[in-house]
């Protein structure tokens, strides 16, 4: 038990929370944009997975981080736009189309990996690149916080910054307001002459960019290379974080950190002799609790208002 407390109250533990939360923050924010605009985007999981593979493959082929990031973003945005095409133009059910994209991504990534490397498991044979960790110049000197905040992957900082920027963007800019109205009251948008579909496509584009960053982080930051199905449901946990965070960027950031903490705690709890399977359940149980608490609070609010 004392051993456990030693782990939980160490700076390393909080350091790992930020690291583990990063893909969930990106995925959660991706969900915020699409759901705010009125499109349920289940495909985040598959887009992340594709991003994880394409980052590795492009960086191995071109030996350039920038080209691999830009190429991956391009591919992922394309996938998000396909979802838009299906749901907005062809009026397909968004959950079904999203799941279809996930199935495609799940099989397609292994297919491509096998064609390129002859392995169905991982990309160890590809000489891919890493997104570096950075030490923050002044913050590093602060005793405890410095240890937690400094030395993270660049994308971890990007994720946190994007959460704050998204807050300003969604609530303070015309485009942000348009995205929110597209979800809450599309008729109002129509009445002021804004094309709802166009707004939703913009939101999906942003959603695709964020999903791609989540994928890039997984294969080029969190781990060194791609492994089959490496997203392991993080896209869905991101959707849950968005629901729990009340579709607010900062709320989603906070919810993602809670999931990250549950995940890190699961690692720390392994020193107690609890069977690993039960420890591995913790993030999923937390997610259900989070979504549940959110829905109870909204349904109570609705009852008060209505």
């Amino acid at each position, binding site marked *: 038990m004392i051993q456990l407390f030693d782990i939980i109250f160490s700076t390393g533990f909080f350091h790992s929370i930020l690291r583990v939360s990063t893909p969930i923050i990106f995925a959660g924010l991706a969900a915020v944009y699409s759901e705010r605009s009125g499109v349920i985007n*289940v495909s985040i999981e598959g887009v992340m997975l594709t991003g994880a593979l394409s980052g590795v493959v492009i960086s191995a082929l071109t030996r350039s981080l920038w080209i691999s990031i830009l190429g991956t973003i391009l591919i992922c945005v394309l996938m998000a736009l396909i979802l838009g095409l*299906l749901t907005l133009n*062809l*009026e*397909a*059910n968004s*959950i*079904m*189309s999203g*799941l*279809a*994209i*996930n*199935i*495609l*991504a*799940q*099989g*397609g990534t*292994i*297919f491509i990996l*096998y*064609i390129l490397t002859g392995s*169905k498991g991982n990309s160890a044979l590809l000489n891919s690149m890493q997104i570096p960790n950075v030490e923050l110049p002044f913050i590093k000197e602060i005793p405890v916080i410095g240890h937690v905040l400094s030395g993270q992957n660049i994308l971890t900082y990007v994720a946190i910054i994007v959460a704050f920027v998204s807050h300003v963007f969604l609530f303070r800019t*015309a*485009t942000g307001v*348009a995205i929110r109205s597209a979800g809450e009251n599309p008729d109002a948008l*129509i*009445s*002021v*002459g*804004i*094309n*709802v*579909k*166009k*707004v939703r496509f*913009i939101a999906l584009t942003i959603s695709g960019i964020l999903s791609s960053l989540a994928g890039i982080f997984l294969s080029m930051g969190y781990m060194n290379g791609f492994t089959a199905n490496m997203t392991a*449901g993080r896209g*869905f*946990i991101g*959707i*849950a974080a968005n*629901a729990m965070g009340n579709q607010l960027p900062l709320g989603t950031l906070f919810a993602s950190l809670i999931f990250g903490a549950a995940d890190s705690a699961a690692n720390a709890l392994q020193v107690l002799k609890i*069977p690993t*399977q*039960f420890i*591995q*359940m913790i993030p*999923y*149980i937390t*997610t*259900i609790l989070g*979504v*549940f608490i*959110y*829905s*109870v609070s*909204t*349904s109570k609010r609705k009852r008060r208002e209505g």
Partner: protein
Amino acid sequence: MVANKLKKNITLILSVALALLISFIIIFFVSDEPLYAIKAFIVGPFSTSRRLGNLIEKTIPLIFTGLAASIMFQAKQFSLIADGSFVIGGLAGTILALNLRLSPIATIPIILVLSAIAGGLCAVIPAYLKSRWDTNEFVVSMMMNSILQLFAAYVLLNIIRDPESGFVASFLIPDQYHLSILFSGTRIHFGLIIAMIVTILAYILIYKTKLGYSIRMVGFNPNFAFYSGVKLSLIIFIVQIIGGSISGLGGAVEILGMYDRFQWQTSPGLGFDGMTVAILASNNPIFVPIGALFIAYIRTGADVMARTSQVPNEMVYIIQGLVMIFVTANLLVNLFKDRKIRCKMDTRLTNSVSKGGSHDTAI
């Protein structure tokens, strides 16, 4: 109406054909002998009686999960619990078969019924949260699947694992509890008959009973259903429990029909395939066996192809994803004609307004 149905079937077949065509093009790019690979894929499943048997064996569990998905989709409940229920159904079937000591005639039905109940119980949390608090059933069922799978792995590794087995698997399921083989020379088992019976029952439930009518009404227009006196939350709950139960039954049938030991440390993923089956069947239970047969066919074909050529059998997921995309996109355009017209009006309105003003600068 008849013309409409015909049109729907034609678009369905065209969608499937298009998906297959695209995958053949992919095979052309990745294979050294593409024609050989495609031939293996298409005629492979029929080449030997063993492979033909494989095809039918693979169809059986897909019928169960396909029925589970189509019943839930009828009420527009996008719960993925079929996957977790399938695993737990199989686990429950194994545990019961290992512990019950009655005559097989009495035991097998008891095992199947209890496994179905176990599968239904898996669906309780997402179903109750959705019906009572409007919690997103998609996210909750997804998380439940992971939890249930981990639970199954725990039980397998710590409670029912046979240390003498060379791989991670449960103790041997006694021979007398295996479902009997229908055709000698294959492994096609009695589960096929059970699947057919459940198919017919599901069809009767959806199209010939009051409950089924309510289920379809909830799916078609929940507001209308609510104001017609349908207990919305009850239907939402029941439909997911039925889905979980059918899938749980399927899991037990699969274990008792195809396996000597329980060995699913990770989910076989048949619950997810059930959704593709449901889409191919337009959520109509009576067409589910056909959809299941198709998915089993591309599975078997891809396995044969993977063994005889360089094309990995993940090709199946590409075909499945494409079929799902094409069918959902087309199907819904046809199903919701009036919605389409309304949306067209919306866009026309938008266009005329935006032509009048200069609000586009806002974006």
